[in-house]
């Protein structure tokens, strides 16, 4: 990865976008799906009605837009930054989703759940610190 100040600033900005938009997308999808009635039914007729509600929910579309923004930012930052640098940084998304879930949806994050999320962040960070190449170079 290049080490100029401009590239660092650009990378931090893109990482901030990744860490914000991935959890925000999931929170918005969650908000949208909580407003869909009959979503717990497995009957085909009920599922058709659910599909109509999903398509007409602005929160679902905002969630999809957020996830697309995350995806574009992820692809863009990978064009100049190493995967082994980007992936561990994105592990903090799991902590951000807990904060956003608490702040925007009023969800309760118990100490056990918070501990679990912290352990997951650590695990994803460790996975991300391994070499991205797992096959022999061609």
């Amino acid at each position: 990865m290049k080490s100029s100040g401009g590239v660092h600033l650009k990378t931090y900005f893109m990482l901030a976008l990744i860490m914000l938009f991935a959890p925000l997308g999931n929170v918005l999808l969650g908000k949208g799906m909580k407003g869909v009635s009959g979503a717990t039914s497995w009957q085909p007729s009920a599922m058709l009605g659910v599909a109509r509600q999903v398509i007409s929910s602005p929160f679902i579309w905002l969630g999809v837009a957020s996830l697309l923004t995350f995806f574009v930012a992820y692809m863009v930052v990978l064009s100049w930054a190493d995967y082994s640098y980007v992936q561990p940084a994105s592990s903090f998304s799991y902590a951000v989703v807990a904060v956003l879930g608490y702040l925007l949806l009023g969800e309760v994050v118990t100490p056990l759940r918070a501990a679990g999320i912290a352990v997951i962040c650590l695990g994803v960070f460790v996975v991300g610190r391994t070499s991205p190449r797992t096959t022999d170079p061609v």
Partner: protein
Amino acid sequence: MREALLLFLIVVAGTGGELCVSRAMKTAGEVTDFRPAGLVRFVLRALRVSWMWLGVALMATAFFSLLGMLAIEAVTFVVPVTALSYAAGALGAKLFLRERISTQRWVGVFIVCVGVTLVWLSKQ
């Protein structure tokens, strides 16, 4: 039970989809022409690989399963437990793509599984 089934679909279909797309991209070859027409040609070439269609279908299944789980469970529960896909991804990469997985990666996967267990227990 329903949560477990949806989580299974999210993790297995999502990871399976990514593995299928990965295999399809290796068959389709490397992107060398980044001009719009070149990218369109590449996408059309990738779509001729049957693994790509299977991958897209599996990823769509995972997305709709995620929506289903978000309808019945808290976001702060659903998103963390989907980290189980790191374990499925490592297993799939080893068995399906014949990749080498380092000890450190297995350690990371184990830590993720411990975290997912804690989050799952927090639902009780």
